[in-house]
């Protein structure tokens, strides 16, 4: 346990008992701040909680020796004696608990408002889901589900909301791809992240309208500081679809004249073939992904700058059987228990498929204007090209590889943020952001599911926080403005450019109370909004693999949500329980409703769906329980329940996740020989039948029955040639159960994949260096 004190001269502290003391809590490994930690001075029975920047403070102290006790979940409790003669500050370095690392720690992330429920996937927990898609790997977090289009395409669902209502932050930049489509997966390589934080609730004040339903933030590892070179290799293999993944990362820091400068390069190749459902292969469900990223970083005592570039490229096959052009074809697909086409295992991807290329360039910098004041700025540019290739792309084309739809979007955004602390108990965050997007859609159709558009948006926000003793109160306000022009053909074949302008004020209020050492209570109210997207306004076309014709409505207005959430967390050495409930009223919620009228296409009749608005309610509960029977043997239970109701027509909403219960047992063995931290897990996932569905004819097929899956896994570290190699093996769907999931759009055509054995290796490329804590 290392720590250091930089006692500083301070002016104006004449009287003896007016010493003030600031402490900064950081993770000894990642060097990241640790917010939300209770720090007590034993001798005085005084306490403080570290703020979002990991800083706590005491004032009016008399000179003397004090014991500071810092206790937070996921870290060893630190007790440090400090002799105070005058005002000053110190860095407290906390080390993570090695044994019994909670899969999903309750560690708070500095981006988050501390009163909104959030969870982080890091360490062993993230290593256990390597190789899975982002949407899939987040299913382990309570409150989350995923909406899928077959095995290769998965998007996260937070408290029932997805797509444009969820913001995905990739290294601090809001992901800007073609999020509007539920078959458009996030264009991100999860191997770039060392931890993923999910904020389960509106964060619109901080991030704008995209964060209405929550935020998924992927954070890379902190840049290295020790001079030298380091690196790691991740290898993943899966039995079901013959997937092989290799991801390599190299990083280094310079010393001497170039001290403070560091770099990292990283690349991933992921190749998978057809997935296998019990009894048959899912034809054309392979994918081939190639990604790379590079980062250059400079850190000085009071300022720093970063340059980051990443490139994501993939080709994803779409189940052949799911490409139906009209109701007659859909009807025949629905009547058969499995796809009509014979299939075998192959890595070959044929039509229909998607190709996606996403490039991100980010520059950022920060500077401390004083100990209590920091300014940071981020600029980013993203280019996203998505092509959807179908075999009926053109009536007369012999070429198989003709592009049916292509979407190209460029996003530029910039943000400046000023964080400051004043009057000891108050802190504030003030920011300004701006962005512009330009979307170009090309289609073989007469019209398209999304028109071309250009927009400019800006926002200003301020968040105030007050912390004293066991209480944290926070409040924030944000004003946004969006100018958006759409370019498209009207019904008379004239090229027109309707203009839309939106502005909105949103706000948030929250409180956290550390009732006792073991019990914490949170409350948050967030008001959020979202302008209608161009596809919701002017979309007019058949969505591939959906056999539905989507019609926009140019009269749609702004969607507004009022989200109330509260959670309580109890934590003792044996038992950890967290219960969160939320009540999210969304007025003018935009969704697709069947028109009941046929849409006449030359390729046949398809059902028409119209974008419409209604007042709806999403409510639910997340429950996490972790109980240790013995220090090594524990039970982990996670329950996710979501309800959604349309108050305008008094009916349920479609595509709401079914109740999900995940119960597992974990045994952590003693270390033996060169093997450390061995564990064994077994779990049961039960997903209920979704019986709360709209009564009128919304869906092509009724929700599938409930299903039960059994999963198991084990993992350990083994020291070999001074390298601590991490190995884990998981088996999903051990019983090879045939099931379909309500939120998978391909459930109309095929079952989900069967048993899948995944083996993962994480190999440090250089021998371990002796840790030097000075």
């Amino acid at each position, binding site marked *: 346990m290392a720590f250091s004190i930089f006692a500083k001269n301070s002016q104006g502290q004449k009287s003896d008992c007016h010493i003030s003391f600031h402490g900064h809590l950081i993770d000894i490994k990642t060097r990241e701040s640790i917010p939300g930690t209770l720090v007590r001075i034993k001798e005085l029975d005084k306490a403080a909680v570290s703020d979002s920047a990991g800083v706590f403070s005491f004032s009016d102290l008399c000179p003397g020796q004090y014991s500071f006790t810092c206790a937070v979940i996921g870290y060893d409790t630190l007790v440090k004696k400090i002799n105070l003669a005058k005002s000053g500050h110190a860095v407290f370095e906390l080390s993570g608990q090695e044994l019994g690392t909670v899969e999903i720690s309750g560690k708070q992330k500095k981006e988050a408002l501390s009163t909104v429920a959030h969870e982080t996937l890091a360490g062993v927990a993230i290593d256990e889901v390597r190789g899975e898609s982002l949407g899939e790997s987040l299913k382990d977090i309570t409150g989350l589900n995923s909406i899928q289009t077959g095995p290769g395409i998965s998007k996260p669902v937070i408290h029932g909301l997805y797509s444009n209502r969820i913001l995905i932050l990739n290294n601090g930049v809001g992901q800007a791809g073609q999020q509007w489509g539920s078959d458009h997966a996030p264009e991100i390589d999860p191997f770039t992240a060392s931890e993923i934080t999910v904020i389960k609730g509106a964060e619109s004040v901080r991030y704008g309208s995209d964060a209405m339903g929550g935020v998924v933030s992927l954070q890379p590892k902190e840049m290295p500081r020790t001079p030298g070179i380091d690196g790691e290799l991740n290898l993943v293999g899966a039995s079901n679809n013959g997937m092989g993944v290799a991801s390599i990362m190299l990083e280094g820091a310079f010393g001497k004249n170039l001290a403070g400068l560091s770099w990292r390069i990283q690349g991933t190749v992921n190749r998978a073939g057809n997935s296998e459902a019990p009894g048959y292969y899912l034809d054309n469900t392979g994918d081939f992904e190639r990604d790379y990223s590079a980062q250059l970083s400079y850190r000085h005592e009071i300022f720093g700058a970063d340059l980051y570039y990443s490139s994501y490229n993939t080709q994803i096959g779409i189940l052949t059987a799911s490409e139906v*052009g*009209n109701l007659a074809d859909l009807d025949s697909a629905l009547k058969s228990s499995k796809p009509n086409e014979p299939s075998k295992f192959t890595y070959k991807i044929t039509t229909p498929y998607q190709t996606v290329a996403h490039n991100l360039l980010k520059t950022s910098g920060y500077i401390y204007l004083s100990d209590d004041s920091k300014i940071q*700025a981020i600029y980013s540019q993203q280019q996203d090209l998505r092509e959807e290739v179908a075999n009926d792309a053109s*009536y007369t084309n012999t070429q198989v590889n003709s592009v049916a739809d292509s979407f190209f979007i460029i996003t*530029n955004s*910039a943000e400046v943020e000023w964080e400051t602390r004043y009057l000891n108990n108050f802190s504030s965050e003030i920011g300004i952001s701006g962005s512009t997007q*330009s979307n170009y859609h090309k289609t073989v159709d007469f*019209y398209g599911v999304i028109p071309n558009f250009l927009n400019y948006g800006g926002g200003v926000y301020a968040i105030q926080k007050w912390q004293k003793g066991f209480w944290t109160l926070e409040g924030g306000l944000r004003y946004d403005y969006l100018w958006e022009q759409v370019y498209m053909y009207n019904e008379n074949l004239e090229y027109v450019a309707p203009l839309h302008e939106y502005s909105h004020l949103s706000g948030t209020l929250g409180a956290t109370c550390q009732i006792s050492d073991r019990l914490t209570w949170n409350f948050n109210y967030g008001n959020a909004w979202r302008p209608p997207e161009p596809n919701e306004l002017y979309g007019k076309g058949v969505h591939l693999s959906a056999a539905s014709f989507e019609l926009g409505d140019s009269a749609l207005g702004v969607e507004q949500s009022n989200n109330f959430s509260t959670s309580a967390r109890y934590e003792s050495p044996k038992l950890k329980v967290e219960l969160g409930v939320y009540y999210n009223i969304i007025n003018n919620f935009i969704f697709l409703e069947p028109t009941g009228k046929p849409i006449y*296409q030359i*390729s046949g009749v398809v059902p028409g769906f119209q974008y419409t608005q209604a007042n709806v309610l999403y409510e639910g509960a997340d429950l996490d329980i972790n109980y240790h029977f013995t220090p090594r043997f524990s039970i982990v239970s996670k329950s996710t329940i979501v309800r959604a109701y349309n108050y305008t027509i008094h009916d349920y909403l479609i595509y709401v996740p079914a109740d999900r219960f995940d119960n597992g047992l974990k045994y952590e063995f003693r270390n033996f020989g060169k093997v450390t931290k061995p564990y064994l897990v077994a779990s049961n996932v039960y997903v209920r039948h979704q019986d709360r569905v709209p009564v009128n004819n919304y869906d092509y097929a009724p929700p599938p029955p409930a299903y039960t899956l059994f999963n198991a896994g084990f993992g350990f570290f083994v020291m070999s040639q001074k390298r601590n190699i991490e190995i884990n093996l998981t088996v999903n769907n051990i019983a090879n159960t045939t099931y379909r999931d309500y939120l998978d759009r391909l459930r109309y055509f095929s079952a989900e994949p069967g048993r899948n054995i995944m083996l993962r290796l994480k190999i440090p490329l250089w021998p371990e260096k002796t840790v030097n804590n000075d």
Partner: protein
Amino acid sequence: MKNFRNVILFLMFGTIIASCNKNNVANVQHPLSNEFLTTTILNLQNVSNPNDKPSISYYLNPNTPTVPPVITPDTLKLTKNATYTCNIVILDQTKTPVDTVSDVIKQRENIHLFFFYPTSGLMLTDSITDHDTNIPPLPFGLQSQIKTEAASTGSLRVVLRHQPNVKNGTYGPGSTDLDVTYPVSIK
């Protein structure tokens, strides 16, 4: 130090200005390059009566998908116990001059196949008379023969399947390009 602060501030404003730069590809008008099958005409010819040559057209405006198709005349009137040749013409009336798409489909006959489905009770049979250049040749369907029997009414559905690399003479593989239905009366 102060210099560095200036650099940071410069970068901040620079990025804001850079981001306001117009990346205006969105308002580039994209060409409507592909063909639309707006009109499907059946031209029939009674083999034993040169004056009996009924015809029917099915018109759909692709830009008004909620408007039902226009069928002219409203019914295809055929003579009972007769044999007709049937020739399909497909037009794109969004183009000026009007584009005859069936000519292009003919060039791509190896990946296309027509199907004819009379409703039960409509006393007619349709058999394809032309073949593509696949080896062995497979039926195509732009040319066919319709044989009528007793007087009856119903409708005839015509489907064009698009089967690149997978055409094998059956309906299954590929996807549907065209699916139109005509009212028919046999007297």
